[in-house]
Every structure is written in structure tokens, then in C-alpha cells.
């Protein structure tokens, strides 16, 4: 697993993807930080975090699009699958690689916190709680997009489907209100990522929210392992 993790990381920085994702994330977070904190003279990062949700939805598919689709297209999966590592280790190695880049992205908020501290006392509890929420949200979306990447041989398809899935998640809350059937509405509300994420941005750390994101992550990673396993038998 260590070897795969290391290769994933170096892969992100050998190609432009790692730099582009970091740059885009830093640019937009910086822009929102300027607009909501400096321009409005506010010490709260809440709006900045809330808006970053959209950026995350778009950059994660880019981060993960190659994970399995490109391996399959280039036939490098033959090296992985014939090596003495389990499928779970392969999936986890790739997941952690993508997550590390994402965590590097999110770390910029610590810098913003420090910047605010020059002017006002930032609510560190809220900032750290939201950061945790952002990391957990990212985890779940990364796992989902890795799963999508394992379904196709084309990284473009993986990225586009991943972004579409992100949009579905984003519109879920407004969509669920339109559904007239109560139980469907209930289910949609329960799987609405934003519901759980928003709590973090208020500084509310609830175990339910943490467990939700961890389960979604686990579920999609498990699905990915199953996809790889199934392909071997078909």
C-alpha cells in the first residue's frame, strides 16, 4: 500500500494535475476569502467554506479521474493486480494519495485563520471544525469519484460523470423539497451531503455527521474493490 500511495503522490506532481488542482483551489478560496472576509470586513470564514463546496465538487473528479480508468487503459493495472498486494490495499493507496492532495488544498484555511488573527480574534473552534467537515466531505466525494473511475476506461468520462454526480448532490436539497412522496423526500434528505456538511460550518461537531461521511467513504471504497474483483472473474 505504501508503494502505491507514494506513486500516486509522485504521479500528481509528475503531471500537471497536482499543481493545477492546488492552484485552482487556492485561487478560489483566496477569492472567496477576499470577498467575504476582507471586502465585508468579517472575521467569519463560514461563507468562504460554504462556497468552497462547489469548487470541491469540480476539482475532486479531476484529482481522481485517472486513478483506475487510466491504469486500465494503459494496462498498468496488470502490474498492480499481479503483485503481492490485495485489492483493498490498492484502492486504499490510491484513495490516500488523492486525499493527501486534497488535504494540502484544505490546509490553506489554516493560513487564512492566521491572517484573520492579525485583525481580529478568529473563532478557531469554528475554523477547525469546518476544516474537519471539509476533509470528511472530501473523503466521501473522493471515494465516490474513485468508484466512478473504476467503472470506465476513459478519464474524461470519469471526470464528467463525477462532476455530474457532484451537481446532483448539490441540488439534492432543493430537489428533495419538490418530491411529493414523503418517504422519498425523507431518504433524499438523509443522503444529502450538504445537510451534514453545513453543521460543520456552524461549528457544530456531531458524531452523526462524522459517521455519515466515514460510512459513505467506506461504502464507495468497498464498491470499488468489488468492481475490480468482479472484473477479474468476468
Amino acid at each position, binding site marked *: 500500500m*505504501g*508503494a*502505491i500511495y*507514494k*506513486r500516486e503522490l*509522485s*504521479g500528481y506532481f*509528475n*503531471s500537471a494535475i497536482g499543481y493545477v488542482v492546488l492552484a485552482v483551489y487556492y485561487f478560489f478560496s483566496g477569492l472567496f476569502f477576499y470577498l467575504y472576509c476582507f471586502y465585508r470586513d468579517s472575521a467569519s470564514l463560514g461563507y468562504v467554506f460554504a462556497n468552497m463546496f462547489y469548487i470541491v465538487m469540480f476539482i475532486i473528479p479531476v484529482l481522481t479521474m485517472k486513478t483506475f480508468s487510466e491504469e486500465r487503459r*494503459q*494496462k*498498468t*493495472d*496488470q*502490474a*498492480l*493486480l*499481479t*503483485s*503481492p*498486494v*490485495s485489492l483493498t490495499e490498492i484502492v486504499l493507496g490510491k484513495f490516500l494519495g488523492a486525499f493527501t492532495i486534497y488535504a494540502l488544498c484544505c490546509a490553506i484555511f489554516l493560513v487564512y485563520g492566521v491572517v484573520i488573527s492579525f485583525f481580529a480574534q478568529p473563532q478557531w473552534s469554528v475554523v477547525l471544525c469546518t476544516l474537519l467537515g471539509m476533509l470528511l466531505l472530501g473523503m466521501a466525494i473522493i471515494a465516490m469519484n474513485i468508484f466512478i473511475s473504476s467503472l470506465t476506461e476513459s478519464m474524461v468520462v470519469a471526470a464528467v460523470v463525477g462532476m455530474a454526480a457532484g451537481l446532483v448532490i448539490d441540488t439534492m436539497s432543493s430537489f428533495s423539497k419538490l418530491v411529493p412522496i414523503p418517504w422519498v423526500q425523507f431518504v433524499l434528505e438523509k443522503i444529502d451531503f450538504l445537510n451534514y456538511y453545513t453543521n460543520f460550518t456552524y461549528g457544530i461537531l456531531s458524531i452523526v455527521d462524522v459517521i455519515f461521511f466515514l460510512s459513505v467513504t467506506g461504502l464507495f471504497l468497498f464498491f470499488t474493490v468489488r468492481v475490480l474483483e468482479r472484473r*477479474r*472473474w*468476468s
Partner: protein
Amino acid sequence: MIEVKNLTKRYGKITALDNISFTVDTGEVLGFLGPNGAGKSTTMNIITGYISSTSGTVTVDGSEILEEPKKTKQKIGYLPEIPPLYIDMTVRKYLEFMFDLKRVKLPKKEHLDEVMRLVGLEQHGARLIKNLSKGYRQRVGFAQALLGNPPVIILDEPTVGLDPKQIIEIRKLIKSLGKKHTVIFSSHVLSEISAACDRIIIIADGKIIADAKTDELSGVLTDKRQLLLTAEGSAADIQNELKKIPDVQKVKKTGESDGAAQFAIEYKPGADIRRDVFSAMTRLQCPILEMRSGSESLEELYLRLTGSVKGGEA
């Protein structure tokens, strides 16, 4: 060392492998011969654990691939048909990655140096794989398969797309590997297999149609010796004259163009009729335009072994 038992692989309704069984002894170099789509790669992919069989078992050095996948995979070095290379890495970085991935316990730097020297990559460690030519990429794939000195090495068409010089080098390498490792290597070129392997398995349509030691198989080949001749002059006269040569068994006219005729001459094994043919043609004053020994192609051999050679066909 390797035991393959009743291996069957079906893709939907298509049967890619049909109840294949064979064993490979320690230190043996086994050639896997067959036309494209015969099931060579499928067999290799199953042995190495890349795909699973529909039924049947593969045992490598006492451990079964499905029961103990990690332990079994550790014993196999595999070079697939398309080398599994990460083209955005340098040669050295890639091999370091594969070294870690395979959990090789040997001293890393020394072992990598040794393997790179063995395949002739010592000068190219810092190059990006995407900038390498096909031959060098193949060598990197080769190096990757050798990492950790696995007892079993499986090579799927390792010489396809290489230039003749590289083919000879790779062939030498395979032969030298046979001393320390058990090797299975596939190809659709007969001469290549017979040059490097102790034993040959011919596979077609998912079935094994021949399994013999190389010398025995080449014995099968050499009992029919052929000389192909193109000479200028009257075809009938030439044919008569050729038939008079003592060791000649059969003379068949295969074509005629621009006043020259082509013949396939079959003669007794062990005999050499070239000088007699030359003097016969000199007597007739028919210039020889071409004379060469006709070796049987894989296709002919394959067709003959499957018993489907019909007169005039092939």
C-alpha cells in the same frame, strides 16, 4: 514448479480456454506457441492471477493462486504483452516503485543496479519512460519481471515489435534466465521458441494440440526436408532431371513465370542434394535463379498438427 490443471475460461459464450492441463518443471524453459487469439495470454493472465479461471486450478511451487494469492504472486515475475509501465516516471523511479510493490526483501540499491545491468539499462535510469523506444520499454518491462529474483518468470510475447538485434539479445537473456528460473514464454514465431526453449506447447483455439521437447518437435519438422528451386528453362526437362537425383523423393512444380519454373523438392532426411541439383541444372544449361531450403512455417506446422492440411491448401 507450475501445475496447471483442467483450466477453463469462458467469456460469456466464448470459450477462451478449454480444459488445459500441463506442468512445468523447475529450471525448465517452456515455449508457448500458437496463433493470435489461441489463448496464450489468457493462460498466462490466469497463472499470474490477473484474471480468474472459470474452473480449474493453478499451483505454483505448492501454493495455489486463489487460496494464497500474495504468497503465489510473490513467486512470479510477469511481463505482459504490453509492458505495464507508468510512462511519466523515470526508469529508476519506476523500478523502485515495482520493487516496493513486490515487497522485495533484497538490498534495494544493489538489486536494482544488478537487474538494470542485466537488461542493459544501466545508462538509462534517469530517462523518462515515455521518451524510451519500444525496445527499451520492453527492457524496463523485463527488468520489472526480474525484480526479487522470482523462481517463476512468465513472458508474454516479449520480442514483438523489437528489431532483430534486440530479439537476439532478448533470446539470449531468456536462455540465461533458464539456468536460475522456471520460464514460460509465448510467441507466435516458431524459430524464436525453438531457439530458446527446452519444451514447446502448441496451443490453438483454447486447446493444447502438441506438448513436446524442442528436439522432438523439431524432429517432427525435419523428417520432411524441402529444397525450393527456381530455374530458367523448360519446366518438364528440369523436373525429369531433378527426379534422377538419388536422394530426391518428390518433385513438385509450384509455379512458372517469365520462362522460369519453381519447384519444391523433397528429399531424404540427412541428405544434401544442393550440389547434385547444381550439376543437374548445369547439364541442362538452365541457370539457377534461386535455391533455398524450405522450412516449415508455424502455420504449416500448426495446420499439420491439427490434422487439417488438405492437398494443395496451406
